[in-house]
């Protein structure tokens, strides 16, 4: 499973970064970068919470 962000929807508000900082990071120009798109046992909960918290529904978890 992998994390996917729809950048047409992403508003760079950084909620996902605050919830799952190992996966999401806003760069210095406020563009969202995915640091690691792998969904694992360890990070699944945080990533699912980021998916639910994204105000513009820009994040999804997809099959490899």
């Amino acid at each position: 499973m992998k994390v996917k962000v729809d950048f047409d929807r992403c508003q760079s508000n950084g909620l996902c970064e605050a919830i799952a900082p190992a996966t999401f990071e806003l760069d210095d120009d406020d563009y969202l970068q995915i640091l690691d798109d792998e969904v694992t046992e360890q990070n699944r909960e945080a990533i699912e919470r980021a998916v639910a918290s994204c105000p513009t529904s820009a994040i999804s978890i997809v099959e490899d």
Partner: protein
Amino acid sequence: MAHTPHFDLSDPAFDVTSDVVHAARDQQWYVETNWGWAVLRYAEANAILKDRRFRQGNARWPEQNGIHSGMFSDWWAEVLLSIEGDDHARIRRLLMPAFRNKAIAAMRPRFQALADELIDGFVERGEVEFVSEFAEPYASRIICVLLGLPEEDWPQVAHWADDLGRSFGISVAADLPRIEAALDGLHRHLDAVVTDRQATPRDDLVTTLLQAQETDGTLTRHELGVALVFLAFAGMETTRNQLGLALQTLLSHPDQWRLLGERPDLGGQAVEEIMRVNPTVTWITREAVEDVDLHGLHIPAGGIVQVLSHAAGTDPAAMPDPGFDITAVRPPHLGFGSGVHHCLGHFVARTDMAVALPLLARRMPDARADGPGEWLPVSGNTGPVRYPIRFTPGPRSGG
């Protein structure tokens, strides 16, 4: 035939947290009101706030109250909440850097020092009028810091923000002269800061926005003025009211209040749990931009929908165990709205409240209400006007 209820949201006696609302939620996901349809269940509320077939629904507020021209309606037409599409995205993007989590997290020590200072001011008395002695100066001084205003201006800024807040009251037309005077005062005050930062740049929000204006010319001085006044309006009353509501909820759960005093690390989660059950913005408004059919409800273009944040946050279908518990992790609450208009200042509000509440809990360990106080109607933007509290003073720092 089952009786379908009809709510009057602007009746001062109507309470968005009452049993009639919960009973209506058991029957249907929406209910008709004097102000459009109210959405009562979490799943539908969450979906509608994010649905691009709706725009933020407060844009036509002045017009709906018979105000068609003048300073207030001109300003309101241009604020972030009222605009959509490319202009909205452009201005939000320009403001965003100042509201990033990292920028706000760096202000934590400042929030803490401010909270300590305010608490020191009353704690020995063992009693406090929470709104005027804590919630209002705390919220207002933080806005001053953010906007680069001298902190000692806070009473004036609070006063203006309060008068501007009347634009969301039922008597907005009658209050118009006060509202416009506040708007004018804030405009002039903030314009002086802009002029100052043009001459002497600092490491602050106004300087950053001025630089954005110079480097890519994407923000006019006029737009900058509109945005700064709106930030004062959007950030002051909301935070003040939400802090008062936070105390109301926590003091009715003394075990949770005690726990928060012992475990300041729970501050962040406590804020989430409080805003789920006791949000200050009790309706978040949307207007359909096209005809929308949703689960059996036809909403014509121009139709107004109110998302009732408390009803959604306590919906048993989404929160199987809806009791108040600051250690529980829940689906995200809707107290900051959602979609493209999701509150720009949420990291500010989340952080400043997460810092303040545990400090208050530690230093007022057995706090309880001292009389009924005075409260706004539990509809629209709600909270205490006066909230006297009594307590035995606790220690300033742990150990």
